[in-house]
């Protein structure tokens, strides 16, 4: 099945889309900006060394969050200057996924060693893991495999049965599912950005329904033959 994402049909649709995007961007900006401002004020008045240290760490955390947000928005806008520029290295994708995973995994198997920029691999695998653990349910599986040309990582999670069209939407820029909208802040760009960075490395990211419900995310990257 070939799925074509919906194209805005009218000025009204374009306006609606623009408002939706600005709304999620505004949300993601406001929290760290207002938190930073408030923390800086508290830091000015702080006379307790331990609390000052805690506040300084919180300031740094929110500054990093804003830095990452700027990168994400530039990537989302198609500005590829923020795509990592480090040289490709050998990356064990299964080990990377396991290191990022904090909960139980019912299946962890196979091998997939890619020749890829470390930051691109980390970014893409992080998005796959986050997407599965935040929005999916057990059983979870991380499976690696290799073809002649590609190292393949599949991250599967359970969940409701979804159509291919619904799953394709999940990787669209600024798309947020109903559950995401009502429970978590976010831009709805993680999977789309993961796709952007892996495609810049000659790879691909696809999603498909998992038999019985849920999603299988498949990451293909150039294989390391070393």
């Amino acid at each position, binding site marked *: 099945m070939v799925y074509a994402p919906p194209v805005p049909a009218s000025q009204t649709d374009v306006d609606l889309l623009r408002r939706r995007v600005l709304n999620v961007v*505004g949300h993601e900006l406001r929290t760290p900006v*207002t*938190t930073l401002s408030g923390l800086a004020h*508290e830091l000015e*008045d702080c006379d307790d060394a331990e609390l000052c240290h805690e506040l300084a760490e*919180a300031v740094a955390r929110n500054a990093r969050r804003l830095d990452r947000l700027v990168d994400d928005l530039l990537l989302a806008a198609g500005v590829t200057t923020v795509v990592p520029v480090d040289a490709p290295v050998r990356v064990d994708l299964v080990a990377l996924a396991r290191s990022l995973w904090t909960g139980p995994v019912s299946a962890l198997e196979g091998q997939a060693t890619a020749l890829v920029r470390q930051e691109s691999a980390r970014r893409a695998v992080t998005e796959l893991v986050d997407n599965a653990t935040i929005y999916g349910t057990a059983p979870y599986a991380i499976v690696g495999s290799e073809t002649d040309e590609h190292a393949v990582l599949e991250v599967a999670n359970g969940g409701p049965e979804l159509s291919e069209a619904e799953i394709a939407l999940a990787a669209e820029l600024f798309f947020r599912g109903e559950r995401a909208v009502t429970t*978590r802040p976010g831009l709805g760009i993680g999977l789309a950005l993961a796709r952007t960075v892996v495609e810049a490395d000659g790879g691909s990211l696809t999603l498909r329904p998992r038999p019985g419900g849920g999603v299988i995310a498949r990451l293909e990257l150039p294989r390391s033959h070393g």
Partner: protein
Amino acid sequence: MAEGALRVLVADDEDDVRLLLRLQLEALGHTVTGEAADGSEAIEQCETDPPDVVVLDLLMPRRNGFEVIPVLRADHPDVAIVAYTAVAGDFVRNEMKRLHVPLVLKTANASPLEAAMRAAVSEVRGR
């Protein structure tokens, strides 16, 4: 506790927002009775130690703020609620208006939040 001081439960899934609110509210003389990182924790903490007012983020895991409000209203009608959110589109504004919950946008200054808390508590106590 100083006269006029409120007992406040802070419910927000962001650690740093909770840290900031605790410092700001305590600096204003209020007592933060607890911090909840999601809607279910907020309900549980209201069961064990009902505050005067809950500062409630709307987008939270497990149970979001929209789901928490009717539960608190039914089980703890004496607990005031103030919705505290980063942005408020039409849906949020209309929904809070319908539920009669004051809505405050997140800012670096706690004054608007404190004013809304006091008004909400006065209204609950005046019923």
